[in-house]
């Protein structure tokens, strides 16, 4: 039964192939059946495998489809590795993935290249599964690049607009920077440990490297580079907001629920490595903190409904990194799961809103849509509550664990905790700013919009609502994975701290209420001061990172490219040619045609020879 694991990537791959080879000749209904159906099938298989695995009580299960290549001692195989961690990931991907596919069948109905969309989606699911099920880093890298490719294809799905193409390339190239660092990390690991099979590699590392040894630090740092790129953390987060150019289900599936969390998965997967390099692990925590604050601030200033969600995604992944950094491994993964639920919910809700309002993105052109878009409204409220970690919503449990773990950490722990709490405040603030602006107050446009939410689109929303609320009660079977090195959360933290952690998000919600509903405070007043203006501009631009990179890398590269369009090296050879021609011009003058001159040359030549011969 467990052997069926090879079906997981296979089904979506078949879906992809059948859709590509038929090249859009199939009727939409069939496409929908193939596209969504394949994923549904995969979800069933995954569920079966999961139950089987949990019953068997085995710690892990390895299945080799075929040996990929073997060169010397380098022998990666197409081998799948199933344990608690990859099980959770697998279920999230297939489950949430299926829901989003289902939603898309409705959402994309009026799109001309319907089948291209589902082809890419299926390919994505296949690569994502490959990523989480890989037992060696090379296969993981295959999935890693595969999801990157699909994200590129889907961000640029509406290719007619050059901006989309730009966003897509930006996403691919920026993540590629991370991937390259990861690849170098792989080379380092192989040259030092002689294997890229994750488990063997980790054991070898454990055995060979002392804690904090240079190799461990370097290797984990390089892997971190990869993770940071994929998961849009500082300093490589700039691509994610632009990635919202893609269709909304893409943002839900790839840029919220699954792909962007691959970095978290990578770090969790190589837990041992990071524990061997405590400094780097702490760095992970700091990166997470910085990112979640940065993204929180930025989210507050955005107008585009999807960009707000994008920044909130960045900041939530920041929480996960924080969790990983402070050693709350399972908490991080737990948050990953809950986040998948409520962020998918939010995005799909946003999709409904956007579709209903004829592709309107600016939240300040909406307002009071509570009646018009009931389904979207509920999904937003529930999603935002979970996002803001409203007590006993799914988000609450996961975030709580992370913060407690941060608190438990000696030294910088308290600061990390404080930062996290501050972040929670802003989370409440911006998430409900969104809800209030869109659904409350008086309508600011699209007065007669009808909600577009057929069965296929509504069902996933309801299911996700359910999980966003109650997802917190699920327990994920990852103890065995993180058995050692798990930061054991002491639960005897003072009630005060607990209180703070509960109150702060509510505070945020309250503040945003006062701003956007009761208008007790007015944004205008706040924005009056030039300082606020400046801050706003700064935050709005995502802390100016884009401009920074533009001036640091893009512009110089373009400049270099421009000045050297036709290849300096060519000039070198052109120079040689010119010299030869010049020499020709020189000697050809000697052919005067005058007999005297010729005779003279003969005599002169003789003299020269005699001179050389006798005097030298």
């Amino acid at each position, binding site marked *: 039964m467990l052997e069926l694991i090879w079906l997981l990537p296979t089904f979506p791959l078949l879906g992809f192939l059948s859709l590509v080879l038929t090249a859009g000749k199939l009727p939409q209904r069939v496409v929908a059946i193939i596209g969504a159906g394949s994923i549904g099938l995969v979800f069933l298989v995954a569920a079966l495998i999961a139950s089987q695995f949990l019953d068997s009580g085995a710690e892990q299960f390895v299945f080799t489809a075929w040996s990929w290549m073997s060169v010397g001692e380098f022998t990666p195989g197409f081998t799948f590795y199933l344990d608690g961690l990859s099980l959770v990931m697998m279920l999230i991907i297939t489950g949430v993935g299926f829901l989003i596919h289902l939603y898309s069948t409705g959402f994309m109905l009026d799109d001309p290249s319907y089948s291209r969309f589902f082809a890419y989606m299926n390919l994505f699911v296949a690569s994502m599964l490959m990523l989480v099920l890989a037992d060696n880093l090379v296969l993981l890298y295959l999935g890693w690049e595969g999801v990157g490719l699909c994200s590129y294809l889907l961000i640029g799905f509406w290719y007619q607009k050059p901006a989309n193409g730009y966003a897509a390339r930006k996403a691919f190239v920026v993540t590629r920077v991370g991937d390259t660092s990861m690849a170098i990390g792989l080379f380092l690991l192989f040259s030092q440990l002689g294997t890229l099979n994750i488990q063997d590699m980790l054991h070898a590392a454990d055995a060979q490297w002392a804690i904090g040894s240079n190799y461990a630090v370097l290797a984990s740092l390089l892997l971190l580079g990869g993770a940071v790129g994929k998961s849009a953390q500082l300093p490589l987060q700039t691509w994610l907001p632009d990635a919202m150019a893609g269709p909304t289900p893409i943002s839900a599936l790839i840029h919220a629920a699954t792909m962007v969390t691959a970095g978290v998965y990578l770090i969790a997967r190589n837990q041992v490595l990071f524990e061997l390099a405590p400094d780097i692990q702490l760095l992970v925590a700091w990166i997470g903190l910085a990112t979640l604050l940065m993204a929180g601030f930025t989210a507050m200033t955005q107008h585009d409904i999807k960009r707000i969600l994008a920044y909130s995604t960045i900041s939530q992944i920041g929480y996960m990194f924080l969790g990983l950094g402070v050693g709350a491994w399972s908490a991080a993964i737990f948050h990953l799961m809950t986040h998948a639920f409520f962020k998918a919910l939010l995005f799909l809700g946003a999709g409904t809103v956007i579709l209903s309002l004829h592709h309107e993105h600016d939240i300040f052109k909406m307002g009071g849509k509570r009646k018009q878009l009931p389904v979207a409204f509920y999904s937003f409220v529930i999603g935002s509550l979970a996002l803001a970690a409203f007590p006993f919503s799914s988000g609450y449990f996961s975030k709580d664990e992370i913060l407690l773990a941060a608190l438990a950490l000696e030294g910088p722990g308290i600061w990390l905790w404080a930062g996290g709490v501050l972040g929670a405040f802003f989370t409440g603030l911006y998430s409900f700013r969104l809800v209030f602006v869109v659904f409350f107050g008086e309508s600011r446009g699209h007065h007669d919009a009808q909600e577009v939410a057929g069965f296929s689109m509504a069902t996933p929303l309801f299911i996700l609502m359910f999980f966003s609320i109650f997802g917190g009660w699920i327990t994920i079977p990852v103890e065995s994975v993180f058995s050692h090195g798990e930061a054991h959360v002491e639960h005897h933290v003072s009630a005060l701290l607990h209180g703070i952690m509960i109150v702060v998000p509510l505070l945020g919600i309250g503040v945003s209420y006062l701003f956007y509903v009761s208008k007790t405070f007015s944004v205008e007043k706040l924005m009056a001061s030039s300082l606020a203006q400046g801050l706003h501009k700064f935050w709005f631009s995502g802390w100016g990172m884009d401009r920074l990179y533009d001036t640091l890398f893009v512009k110089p590269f373009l400049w270099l490219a421009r000045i050297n369009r036709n290849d300096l090296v060519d000039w070198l050879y052109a120079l040689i040619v010119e010299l030869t021609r010049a020499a020709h011009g020189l*000697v050809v003058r000697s052919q005067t045609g005058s007999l005297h001159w010729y005779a003279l040359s003969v005599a002169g030549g003789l003299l020269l020879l005699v001179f050389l011969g006798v005097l030298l």
Partner: protein
Amino acid sequence: MLIVIATAIVLMLLIGIRRSYVGTSATAITGLLLATIVAAAMLPYTNQQVTPLLIVDQYSLFFTPIICALAMFIAILSFPYLFRLNDDKEEYYLLLTVATVGAIIMVSSNHFISTILGLETLSMALYGMVAYPLHCKESAKYPLEAAVKYLVLSAVATSFILFGMALLYAKTGTLAFSNVTTAHELEAGATYIGVTNIGPMQGLSDNYTIIALLLIIAGIAFKLSLAPFHMWTPDVYEGSPLPATAYLATVGKAAMFVVLLRFLEISDALAFDSVVTAFTLVASLSILVGNLLALLQDNLKRILAYSSIAHMGYLLIAVIASQYLAGTISVEAVTFYLIAYVIMTLGAFGVASVISSSEKEFDEVSDYRGLFWREPWLAGIFTAMLLSLAGIPLTVGFIGKFYLVLAGVESGLWVLLGVLVVGSGIGLYYYLRIVYRMLLPQRDAFAYREAGIESLSSYGVLALLLLLLVVLGIYPTPLMTLIQSVAAVI
């Protein structure tokens, strides 16, 4: 050789009796053919000194048939070329045969007198051939100018050679080629047999020898058109009718080179560093100047003239190498390359003379535009010849270059090899320029001469040359072994 002389005499008589172009040419060709066969047949016989003047050894016997064959080919090629010349055409063949006699004397001479004799016979006849179409206005452009330049300058060169010989004679006391390094013993041994007799004579200083050698070398270098004695070459080549040019470029050069080789081998002249320096200088100058001059040249004859300068320079590398090498490899290299050189040069000129005639010479590169589509075979042959000159494999030119480089490598002449590489690099350019012209689509409304029935035989010759070019380029082993055996005698 006697047969050739006989042919010459017969021709003279024939012309005296009855002027018949076909007749004379036929006689000349048959005579030369006969000579070729006989000489080739004599090859197995051993060396013998016929009179003190001439030596008939394997080497001379190897070159005699080659020269006769060349002369014959040129005679065949001349036939259509001169066919429409409205002037007495018969003497041309007379001159040709006489020149051939001279050439044969040269290759088989190891004595100053016979050298001069052969050299002058050759040159005299050549003056005639160069100036031949003098009378008809529209024919070859500047035969007169060419002839005068050639006459005056080569007379100067001859006098150089003579004076050098005189000095050597004064030094060694013999007119036969002899070892100049051991001349001192001769002097020491000898005493004045002059008017009065006072004690042993005092020797002449080495400088006399060196100057003498340099004089001779300069003279020969002129005849081989080596830089800096090369300037006459392009003008004479351009001025003279194509067959004459071909003769000058092949037979003249080959015979002269054989003399040079013999002289250097016997009189161990290269033992003097200054002589080696001189040769090195001349060689590198010739390669560079020759190729550079040809680079952007638009007149085919001049291009070939310049390239021949360069090729003579390449040959000198092997000559210089012979100083450092124990074996006969350098002599073989020279010999093989000479053969390769004459084949490809004759081929190139042959094509040119087939598409030209004595009324109108097509010797501008632009005239060859589209030849590849007009006359594919002719163009194919021409391309092959040019590629061979450039030293591309599948052709004999490559094997020749291989020989030279090998000789150069063995004797560690890195500088010269470097020059050779650079030279060949430049060479590629102007050879390919011609090839590319032939590949271009043809310019219509341009009067090309279409060869008549009379030039069938020329096609035959060209085909034969192409065959040689390719066969020797792919499987040269037989020729190699032959050369190896004949080179032993020098």
